[in-house]
């Protein structure tokens, strides 16, 4: 498996990337970690004429809290996130997901930005971003834009990013007191794409009432999916087992899985129900700590 010929271009700044992308037009693709794009090129499912390597752009690899936000630079690798003390302490949902994504050598190269920008509902990070109400910051020909995650995923491998846009940062509302998140996916074996995955982020007030809730689903729809109907059930409520069961049921109804080698549609709906409930409980447990 060898990619078709293309021209490689290395850029050292975001502006340079945008300018080059504009100049080269539609046949140019950005490559960051390359672990989504290069396999598709090796299989010749993707045959871009130009690859613009944005991985050498400095200053896009960071994890920090600033104001009300957790900011993660788009070029931060999954491994950097996995071992980051701040994320371990305050955002364990990210660790849940990274542990289950591909394998350690792939995570050494794969970036958070690439995982999201690919627009693949089978990737793990989109569901987390939906659950955590993230904002995607990109730079393009018309300057910097902040795209709320709900407006980011447009279709099968399609996102709100224009061809020249470079994803530069992920912004996530800072973890509040009494908030917690959790992610799990069912996979056929370690490192596999999800048969189904569920990300939950919940915020409670002092009386244990759910103030904010986000639920994202992995690989049970063509486009990364937020479980809005499930969130509605819990928002403003004291979370009970009964309500959790209702959300699980809604998740299994609203997801749109297809039968494939990973299992039948019915099986996937059933495990979405189960793991939605489990992740709600796990997120609650973390929120109450």
């Amino acid at each position, binding site marked *: *498996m*060898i990619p078709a010929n293309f021209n490689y271009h290395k850029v050292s700044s975001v502006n340079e990337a945008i300018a080059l992308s504009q100049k080269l037009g539609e046949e140019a693709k950005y490559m960051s970690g390359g672990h989504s794009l290069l396999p598709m090129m090796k299989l010749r499912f993707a045959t871009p004429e130009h690859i613009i390597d944005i991985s050498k752009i400095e200053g896009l690899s960071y994890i920090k809290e600033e104001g009300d936000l957790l900011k993660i630079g788009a070029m931060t690798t999954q491994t950097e996130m996995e071992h980051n003390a701040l994320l371990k302490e305050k955002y364990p949902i990210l660790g849940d997901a990274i542990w289950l994504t591909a394998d350690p050598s792939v995570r050494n190269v794969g970036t958070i930005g690439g995982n999201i920008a690919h627009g693949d509902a089978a990737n793990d990070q989109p569901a987390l971003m939906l659950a955590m109400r993230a904002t995607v910051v990109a730079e393009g020909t018309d300057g910097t834009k902040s795209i709320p995650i709900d407006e980011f995923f447009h279709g099968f491998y399609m996102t709100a990013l224009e061809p020249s846009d470079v994803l530069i940062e992920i912004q996530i509302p800072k973890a509040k007191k009494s908030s917690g998140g959790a992610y799990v996916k*069912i996979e056929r074996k370690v490192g596999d794409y999800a048969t189904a995955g569920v990300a939950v982020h919940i915020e409670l007030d002092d009386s244990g009432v759910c103030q904010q809730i986000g639920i994202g689903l992995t690989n049970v729809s063509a486009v990364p999916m937020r479980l809005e109907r499930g969130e509605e059930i819990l928002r403003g409520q004291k979370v009970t087992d009964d309500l959790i069961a209702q959300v699980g049921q809604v998740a299994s109804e609203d997801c749109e899985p297809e039968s494939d*080698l*990973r299992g039948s549609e019915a*099986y996937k709906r*059933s495990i979405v129900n*189960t793991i939605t409930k489990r992740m709600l409980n796990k997120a609650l447990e973390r929120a109450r700590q």
Partner: protein
Amino acid sequence: MFKCKTSPEVGGMGHSVKRKEDARFLHGKGNYVDDVKLPGQLTMVLVRSPYAYAKIKGINKEKALAIPGVLAVITGYDLKEFNLHWMPTLLSDTQMVLPTDTVMHQSQEVCAVIATDRYIAVDGAEAVEVDYEPMKALVDPWKALDADAPLLRPDKEGQKDNQIYHWERGEREKTDAAIAAADVVVKERIYLPRIHVASIETCGCVASYDKDTQKMLVYMTSQAPHAIRTILALVAGHVGLSEEKIRIIAQDIGGGFGGKVPVYPGYVIAIAASFLIGKPVKWIEDRSENLVNGFARDYHMDCELAATKDGKIQAFKVSTLADHGYTDSSANPSKYPTGMFSICTGSYDYEHAFAELDAVYTNKAPGGVAYRCSFRVTEAVHAIERMVDKLAAKIGKDPAQLRFENFIKKEQFPYESPLGWSYDSGDYKQTLEKAMDMIGYDDYKKEQAEKRAQGKLMGIGICTFTEVVGAGPSKDFDILGIAMFDSAEIRVHPTGKALARFGTKTQGQGHETTYAQILAEELGIPYTDIQIEDGDTDTAPYGLGTYGSRSTPTAAAAAAMAARKLRAKGKKIAAHLLEVSEDDIDWEVGKYFVKGAPEKCKTIQEVAFAAYTNFPAGMEPGFEATHYYDPPNMTFPNGAYICVVEVEEETGAIDVKRFVAIDDCGNIINPMIVEGQVHGGLTQGIAPAMYEGIVYDDEGNVLNGTLMDYLVPTAVESPHWETGHTITPSPHHPLGAKGVAESPTVGAPPAIANAIIDALSPLGIEHLDIPITPAKVWEAIQVAKAKA
């Protein structure tokens, strides 16, 4: 237990000495076929069919040939000029090397692009335009014999339907009568799906023909280099490839498992290309080519097991449908089209058995690889071991107890099985008892009862298998008429060090160490002083290669026998040196001494030196010996495996809690290596039991032709294996050894399947075919609940 005769320094049998071959692998200095780089070497890449069944209307080479660096595009018509477009299979069928008009399975070789490097060759293959006319593929083997099925092999004279052969063994009437009269009969249709060996190294070769010397040198990932040389001489002799001018070198092999026994069309095309061009041509499969173009198993077995009401087995019948793809290219060197399938009567003593099989053509890849299995033993063992458990469940008897009551007893060996094998030795009761002790069987039974009371699903699965390995006695085995012996040649140098060469071919089994240990055992020369070589047909003695757990039963025996020839010669030399009669000389490991005067002695090294410097008058000088060993019988390794699982009802998730494997492979040469082989085989057992299987859609497309979807277990899926041994030596093998590497692959799947099905039995589930995935379990639970 086995008692070591040699010191650890000498390192004979029974010592866990560390492997001599490790150093090169640990430092990146292994020599695998893709590492070969010859001057002027070209690369070959194959164009493969996207369709399972199609007419080829035309092949346009122009765009490919226009790419700088693309030198040739070879089609079936090019090979037809030399009558090399078809080749015979071991099973007297025929296989296309390259097609002229029809492709018979997805990914079949269509034409070959030869270029100056790999990247250009891939571009060339992309640029070849093939005009196909797709036809409706025959995918379901159960429809192969329907009246309206397309006739897939009209090229074969007299072929009126898609049946390849019918085979049977045993007594049909008596077995049917016993089943009809029995108190209890259990029936099941058991499918062992298509799987692939998926060795981490794919297949490949570098063929290098020198037009001046007319010599053909081929580096090849072959488990049987000598057989390949002979086959090549037989099929290509008419173009001038004569056997003495063909040299096959199998260097280091990155995992074989049976997948590197067959002659794949790619080899023949690369050899033909080099022959035509006169330059070295390298061909290395990519992973998808590897996964989609070969297979093992694919047996649909209708089983019936009959017993008395208290569980005494009386008769077993199995009728099988075998899907061979478009040709029977089984890598089966036995005289029986179904290989050793008739071992299916298992470890149990009963009178009546009958096995029959119909093999059919479909539009799938050909193969029939003996995947870590002495050809169809895995299928046979799965059938009987599932059925014995089903019988136990039916009559409500503990499956261990049922086995104890039916085992062939220790004193019954040699035991004549109902289907005609003479089992050499075993102590099945002791082996199962040891497994039960090690895992704590009774405690798990109690825990299971408690868990079931709480509505939890826990299962305990047993498999007590008997294997048949060691091809073979020449009465049962040959390759194109060549008897399945194997060979060892020993040269002891004047300084007492040695070089030994073998007709087998190691692929990770550690022969460079274990063969040296056998010679150390027999001669007393330290194993570190003995160099082992194999795989080069110009230097190694003729042999049939390594597969079917045959190396220990054949080549290791040959090593012992050759060493004994040397010892006999050495005795004469020692008598000469010690100036006594030969009758007065005794041997203990490493030295000859005068009876009653042990201080008067000569070491093997002194004797070796004398063989070159001071030998008796009239004796042929030198200290070398060769032996070709044709075993009198197969060996019958056996074992008792127990698996404990928990299943989550809500999701179907399966958790393998424990797995204990007790193997009896007779005397053990190197316990460390045997244990390692068992570990590896067990992981290759859980693989088809829970993860792997080649999946086709209705059009004959393979849906999981990469390692993204063909689920080779990682270290996480692979349980922490627990292993142990009983030792019942083979009475007919010179070392009492049996061969072991395939037992775990054969024994693990039914143990795991039995455990999962046992866990699900409270829900009324009686059988599931492997691979048993969480999704499959979940579906079965829904069906069972709907019924209830």
